[in-house]
């Protein structure tokens, strides 16, 4: 345990030293290595010009890493598992348990979707904590894309389960008589706004958490740079926040998936009407 603590502390000091070196030698230098690679111009266009494109490039990098890692790790699965296999099996059964807790007995149907969401988002969040890397989720474009995917999947399952009577859900509880038409329209509009707000909140929650965390790390590392340059003390001021961010990255991925499961439960869960018809 002491060796682990030493390694962690040492690598944090190294990261602070790296940041100080970059900041003092070349203040205008790009912050992540992919951006530095891409300062090459192709036909007068910089490769990843806008921040959104930069985040997209990183998202593809993370995707490549996750796919390659999973393919390599699941190549020779055996009944006497290796250490990697044990860890991955624990992860998958924990995710499976989460979907069953959240959605009920139909949970495992959605395990591929929700499991992939969790792994992808968690790895994306964690990528930003490595010095010289960027988290794709610190860009609203990426989180909005994920939220839109969730929205489309939820609506798709809604129509798949209930047919086009799915739209009748929006006028819940209003008696079907002409006098209640204004109330019905109001309820429809309110429900619609609520439905559209869900992906918006999903996107902003994930984006805000990760961007704020990365910004705090940036500011704290910046505070540590003068300490290193003037007093030769490589103090990793960002270390406590780094540990918090590691936890928060996984928690935010978990919250995203939990909310997705709850929305799926809303469209796929058993209603009283269907049970009454079946009985």
């Amino acid at each position, binding site marked *: 345990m002491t060796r682990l603590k030493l390694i962690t502390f040492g690598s944090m000091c190294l990261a602070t030293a790296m940041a100080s070196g970059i900041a003092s030698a070349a203040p205008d230098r790009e912050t992540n290595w992919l951006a530095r690679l891409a300062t090459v111009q192709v036909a007068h266009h910089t490769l990843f010009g806008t921040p959104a494109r930069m985040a997209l490039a990183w998202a593809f990098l993370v995707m490549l890493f996750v796919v390659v890692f999973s393919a390599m790790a699941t190549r020779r699965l055996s009944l006497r598992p290796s250490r990697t296999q044990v860890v991955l099996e624990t992860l998958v059964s924990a995710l499976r348990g989460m979907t069953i*807790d959240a959605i009920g007995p139909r949970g495992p149907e959605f395990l591929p979707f929700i499991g992939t969401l969790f792994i992808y988002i968690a790895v994306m969040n964690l990528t930003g904590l490595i010095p010289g890397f960027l988290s794709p989720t610190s860009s609203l474009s990426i989180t909005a894309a994920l939220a839109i995917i969730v929205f489309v999947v939820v609506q798709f399952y809604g129509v798949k389960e209930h047919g086009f009577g799915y739209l009748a859900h929006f006028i819940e509880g209003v008696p079907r008589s002409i006098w209640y038409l204004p109330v019905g329209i109001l309820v429809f509009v309110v429900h619609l706004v609520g439905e559209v707000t869900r992906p918006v*909140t999903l996107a*902003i*929650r994930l*984006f*805000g*958490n990760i*961007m*704020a965390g990365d910004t705090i790390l940036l500011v704290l590392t910046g505070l540590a740079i003068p300490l290193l340059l003037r007093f030769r003390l490589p103090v990793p001021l960002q270390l406590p926040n780094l540990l918090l961010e590691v936890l928060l990255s996984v*928690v*935010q991925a*978990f*919250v995203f998936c*939990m909310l997705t499961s709850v929305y799926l439960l809303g469209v796929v869960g058993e209603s009283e009407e269907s049970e009454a018809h079946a009985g």
Partner: protein
Amino acid sequence: MLYLFGLALASGLAVGIAALGGGLGQGRATAAALEAVARQPEVANRLLTFLVLGLALIESLTIYALVVSFELVHLLPKTADILKLLGR
């Protein structure tokens, strides 16, 4: 000038006031969870899931205010530009 004053004030107060409500909410959630665990220590693991989920949802309200604050801060001009404008 009043516009810039308002902008600067708003960018600071936005997340400050939001954190107030968020802190109170999360305090109550944690207090309830602790009380439940004190009564029945064996449910601690099940309650942890609910607690973390609840805390993250409460925190997301403060995060919305943080995002607004970030946008406002980026709208503020640099001090050097303002001093040039004032002729100093």
